């Protein structure tokens, strides 16, 4: 059972309250019609699938209902941090395992 810190509720709660929502910081192009097939493939389907520290989105589904971002290590499953949607992407060098 993962324990996840919701940056809006400012509480650390069990995984069952949350839903996973995929890789974070995937940005939709402001002019979608200008995109090539290859760029569409990148945007829709290609993901980092990193073995290590992963930037990802979660939703506090059974709580405040809001989406937020997190950094989690995909080998240890431990969270390095969670932060509000729209906040800048943190530098990995500033983070340590178990930090909030």
């Amino acid at each position, binding site marked *: 059972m993962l324990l996840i810190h919701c940056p809006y509720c400012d509480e650390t709660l069990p995984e*069952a309250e949350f839903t996973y929502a995929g890789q974070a910081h995937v940005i939709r192009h402001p002019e979608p019609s200008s995109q090539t097939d290859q760029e569409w*493939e990148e945007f829709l389907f290609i993901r980092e*699938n990193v*073995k290590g520290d992963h930037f990802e989105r979660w939703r506090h589904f059974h709580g405040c209902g809001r989406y937020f971002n997190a950094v989690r290590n995909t*080998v*240890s499953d431990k969270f390095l941090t969670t932060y509000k949607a729209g906040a800048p992407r943190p530098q990995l060098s500033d983070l340590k395992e178990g930090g909030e």
Partner: protein
Amino acid sequence: MTRFNAFSLLKNALSGNKNWTEQWPEVEPKSSYDVIIVGAGGHGLGAAYYLAKEHGITNVAVIDKGWLGGGNTGRNTTIIRSNYLYDESARLYDHAVDLWEDLSQDLNYNVMYSRRGVLMLAHNVHDVQSFKRHIHANRLNGVDNRWLTPEECKEYCPPLSISKNARYPVMGGALQERAGTARHDAVAWGYARGAAMRGVDIIQNCPVTAIRRNADGSVAGVETAKGFIKANKVGVSAAGHTSVVMQTADVRLPLESYPLQALVSEPVKPIFPCVVMSNAVHAYISQSDKGELVIGSGTDQYTSYSQRGGLPLIEHTVAAITEIFPIFNRMRMLRKWGGIVDVTPDRSAIISKTPVDGLYVNCGWGTGGFKATPGSAHTFAWTIAKNEPHPINAPFTMERFRTGRLIDEAAAAAVAH
């Protein structure tokens, strides 16, 4: 390596079973090979076996970071079926079932393929309509599948509760009688032995750290823990770690790696005659020849390489199983484990050439790769040997995510692949 037959069994029995030769030799890697397969699971070992047997390519190595069959081949629930909706999938999975039927004879190794039937339960009107559509589509593709009423389901699988008061009432089921189970370890061992007998080197506990490319972009070989090994062709069959390996050759794939868990109960006498799956509650169950109930469901919700997974999913799975089979609600569960499965956006595999000359990939089997093992291995070997896909795996390219020609089994079944 001794062929298994009545005579060799008798001879070795009389000498106290002390003179059996090894099933495959422990070898050090050579400096170069015609083909290197990365990943010694059923799919990779099978590909090496068919390369040697059907294409005469025997200067082959299969390299694995762990022991052979120690990844998803040894971690799945061993269900075999081919009742997929789309034509492309039906052809691929039914090709696998065709090969499963004679695999023990072909390999001279008992893979314990058991045609015990897979029954998929319908619990609501949507399930009924969807399964009937699947049945019609399957039959048009020559795949056996038929509709059973709740009473017929109960007759086929006596432990099933068809009470109308159940939380998930059984409104019928789709039965594929040709489907069943096999012994997962034996599949890896049988392919390994068959390949080794034909001259293939099997190199265990030797991680491939990178794929190296020539100046013209083509494949040069692989970097491993035991040094660089040259190869004309490299086939990657590394399941959940495919993204990690392929990234070293600058090939990015539409994959995400998730933990998929399974569990077994304490062993009991034979009680459960078939495989039962339920998409609505999302769980499946069968009984192994050792007597354990083998139970599984979907992946955990988050990507991970941890080979563990979380307990909430196990709770959900066991709750679903005891709801449909109240008879099992006092049974104790013995072990649970996780494997890392590589999932594609359309939940169909990729068996394909890549933009890199001489590099091939067989991945994206997600939660349902075991059933496809012989068909996947057979068509992957063909693709590597001839540098072009077999007609059966031709639609399973990596380009389909660019062209949009998806094989969308995710939409067809939503769960339980």
